[in-house]
């Protein structure tokens, strides 16, 4: 029989701390919008997290619970890191109630982030919808740290309304930069908004891309993926050049609990960052 045989349990190394949150301190809290806050966090041990862009941590609020949150900063050498959290439920609400100095628990970094080595040397089309911009912010920071390693960098950001715009001052800086092509849109007209209006796909017709050399990094709500992927493919991007990050319910974050399974992938282990080519035959992915 061709079944894989059992595991020699004497040879594996049990990870005693696998589910144990490590103490971390909230250093700073910055309100972003009505629903999002940006937390600056560091491990109390002083150890640097050592994460890559697109990875996440399991954040534990004592007594309340745990939730997966993307690491949204990428600043090698800096012992603290940032989490941008939208208040949607139990844990996120409790997080929003915390002040600088509060202690939380963290597990991670977890998951496969954006493979920066694979996208180096290419033009990048970065598309972020709403809270989807959160993991992408780390990517942009990584790119800017080594700007010369990449080709063109195009960033498209979409929000429902001006009130929901995240990382406002940073977006303004990106907009100012000569080495980034930046566009922002809001879904519906809004008093006082002079910029582009329309869903994010309405920014696509203007785009001129060198398709074979372009990698698209797309993060947003499920509905956005369907339309943005179609646009990317229309622009001639190959399926393996479209890179996405997905969200699922996660309890363990380490490929055991089964909640984040998307067809035969575990979102927490094999993702959250996937190539569209991996997902396109998965009816549960998008």
């Amino acid at each position, binding site marked *: 029989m061709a079944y894989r045989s059992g595991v020699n349990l004497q040879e594996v190394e049990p990870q005693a701390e696998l589910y144990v949150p490590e103490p971390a301190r909230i250093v700073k809290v910055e309100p972003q919008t009505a629903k999002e806050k940006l937390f600056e966090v560091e491990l109390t041990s002083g150890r640097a997290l050592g994460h890559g862009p697109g990875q996440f941590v399991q954040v534990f609020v004592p007594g309340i619970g745990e939730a997966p949150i993307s690491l949204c900063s990428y600043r090698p050498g800096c012992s603290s890191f940032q989490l941008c959290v939208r208040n949607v439920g139990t844990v996120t*609400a*409790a997080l929003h*109630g915390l002040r600088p100095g509060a202690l939380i628990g963290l597990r991670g970094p977890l998951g496969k982030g954006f493979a920066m080595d694979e996208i180096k040397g290419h033009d990048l089309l970065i598309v972020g919808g709403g809270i989807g911009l959160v993991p992408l912010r780390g990517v942009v920071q990584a790119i800017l740290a080594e700007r010369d390693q990449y080709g063109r960098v195009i960033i498209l950001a979409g929000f429902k309304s001006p009130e929901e715009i995240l990382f406002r001052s940073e977006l303004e800086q990106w907009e100012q930069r000569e080495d980034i092509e930046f566009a922002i849109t809001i879904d519906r007209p809004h008093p006082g908004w002079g910029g582009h209006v329309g869903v994010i796909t309405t920014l696509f017709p203007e785009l001129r891309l060198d398709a074979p050399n372009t990698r698209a990094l797309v993060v947003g709500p499920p509905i956005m993926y369907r339309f943005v992927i179609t646009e990317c493919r229309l622009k001639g991007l190959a399926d393996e050049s479209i890179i996405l990050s997905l969200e699922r319910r996660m309890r363990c974050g380490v490929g055991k609990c089964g909640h984040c399974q998307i067809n035969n992938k575990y979102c927490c282990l094999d993702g959250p960052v996937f190539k569209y080519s991996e997902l396109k035959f998965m009816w549960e992915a998008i």
Partner: protein
Amino acid sequence: MAKPTAAVFSFTGCEGCSLAILECEKELLDVVKLVDFVEWREAMSERTEAMIDLGFIDGAISTHHDEKKIRQVRERVRMLISIGACATNAGVNALKHRYGLREVKEIVYGEAGAEFDTISARPVHAVVPVEFEIPGCPIQGEEFLRIVLDIVQGKQPRLPNYPVCVECKRKENVCVFEKGMICMGPVARAGCGADCPSYGAWCEACRGFVDNPNDEAHEEVLTKYGVTSEELLQRYDIFCAYELEERKSRQQGQR
């Protein structure tokens, strides 16, 4: 944060649910460190005029007096939590709806019954808005404590949305269908630890239904075990009579 105040108010019911709170003996001493009980007729003589943070209601609303009183209570309470099958679901009280109100009075009290105040039994949420509901007949002490903890911490409490079979199988029970009993477990909301099947009896869905019960499957299965649809409905009735009435009127409303 100041210690929240709590009160228990009883309406039409057996008061088993208030007793279930008193029965958390081991924990009660810790609970009074978390919340201050300021009014609870069954257990204490004190009463209060002040606004109450947490009001637990047991019992259904089944008289005009009840109805008036619950409206007054609502005014005095920040967070209203119905506890037990009667308060959340009208409980067994709704069984009387199968007869006319006049008939039930007569059956029990004879002619003298005619002047008694009774109206259709309704859950609290049908009369005033409630913030949360803890089901069960009676409520489970553990669940009650968990929910009080959640509330004290500002956490949204949650009830399981899976059927009793889950807890029943975790306890490795022999399914009571195999003993010739009829079980509501497959459509009933869990959270009780499958108490009844674990002690060898059947589940009566005292916690109401899961969000999307598969009644059609249940009817089919029960037919397999020789139960008629009518008997099935009767079974549903014991604790879910009101829920079924509500569902029916919702469906009619949609049409």
